[in-house]
């Protein structure tokens, strides 16, 4: 779901190479659809936290579960990552590339807690056209992407709590979005056992 692709013009249709199919969808179409998704869910909830936590995140979760299935089949020959760092870099690069056409800006380990990891994006694709009104506080539509990440991790056997946050960057007008991943205890225990 990245920007409108540059379509090369071929004078003769026979010169055109056979493609794997269309890999990209129109950014505008996606933006309008996503906008409608948010607007619809906004009418179905009582408060903003519910919209963020249960609505958008759940919508993303379903996408994530499917994306994992698809990518394991397509790229990995029906194998999946079993190690923590493996699955994180799978999300950071493979999943991001398929969904947003680029690798995520950064993947970091939390400094305060052992079980926390962060994926940061300077400008998250879903947030490109969205301005959050002041009265909505820390609400972030990146919750949808957080849901996708949670879906992928959960499906691969790494249950985690995933949230999206705005983090102000010095010298920049717009904050960046950080997807915070907090793994469940069992994941870390298993990881320690595997060594």
């Amino acid at each position, binding site marked *: 779901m990245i920007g409108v692709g540059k379509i090369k013009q071929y004078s003769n249709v026979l010169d055109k190479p056979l493609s794997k199919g269309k890999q990209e969808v129109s950014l*505008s179409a996606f*933006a*309008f659809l*996503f*906008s*409608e*998704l*948010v*607007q619809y869910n*906004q009418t179905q909830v009582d408060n903003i936290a519910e919209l963020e936590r249960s609505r958008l995140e759940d919508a993303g979760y379903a996408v994530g579960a499917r994306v994992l299935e698809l990518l394991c089949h397509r790229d990995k020959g029906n194998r999946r990552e079993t190690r923590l760092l493996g699955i994180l870099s799978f999300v950071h690069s493979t999943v991001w590339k398929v969904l947003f056409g680029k690798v995520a800006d950064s993947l970091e380990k939390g400094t305060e807690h052992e079980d926390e990891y962060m994926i940061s994006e300077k400008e998250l694709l879903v947030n490109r*056209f*969205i*301005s*959050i*009104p002041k009265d*909505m506080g820390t609400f972030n*539509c990146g919750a949808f992407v957080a849901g996708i990440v949670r879906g992928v991790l959960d499906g691969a056997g790494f249950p985690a709590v995933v949230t999206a946050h705005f983090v102000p960057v010095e010298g920049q*007008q*717009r904050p960046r979005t950080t997807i915070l991943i907090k793994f469940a205890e069992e994941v870390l225990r298993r990881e320690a056992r595997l060594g």
Partner: protein
Amino acid sequence: MRFGSRRIRTCVFALNIRQVSNDSRKPTGSGFRTVFRVGLIYSGFIFESGLKDYGSSGRMDTNDSLRVASLWHSMHAISQQLSPISGCFGIELLQADTFDLHCFQSLTGTKFFVVCEPGTQHMEGLLKHIYELYTDYVLKNPFYEMEMPIRCELFDINLTQAIQKDRVALLAR
């Protein structure tokens, strides 16, 4: 006529711009000198639902903006009916002694206009660019309600950038 069936929308925003006016001369190939008057944009408006005052430095408050917007809307509508040519879409340019008013109307009837110094060039391009920004950062924003004032941070940021770029381009000419 189109006017009857069209919803009356009143909305305004005024751009946050104040340009230093100056003249620049540019020689052309044949030794002929053309004088370009570099524009001073007084204010710009989007006629739509919401109302937005892009801080015209205290010169115009919300009520003034609304007044200007509704005045322009009626003039625009009347001009469509008064026009000697059929299929007229309304005033595009209004030239007065002290200012030029360029208006751009989108297919849905949203009007964008810019009030600038007489003889300012390339306002059409600017208005089209503002229209593009409007469709991107206002209409694709789930938190914008139609017919309400435009309060979109990204729109403001990009609009300011567009105006500044325009000013730089004008001064460079």
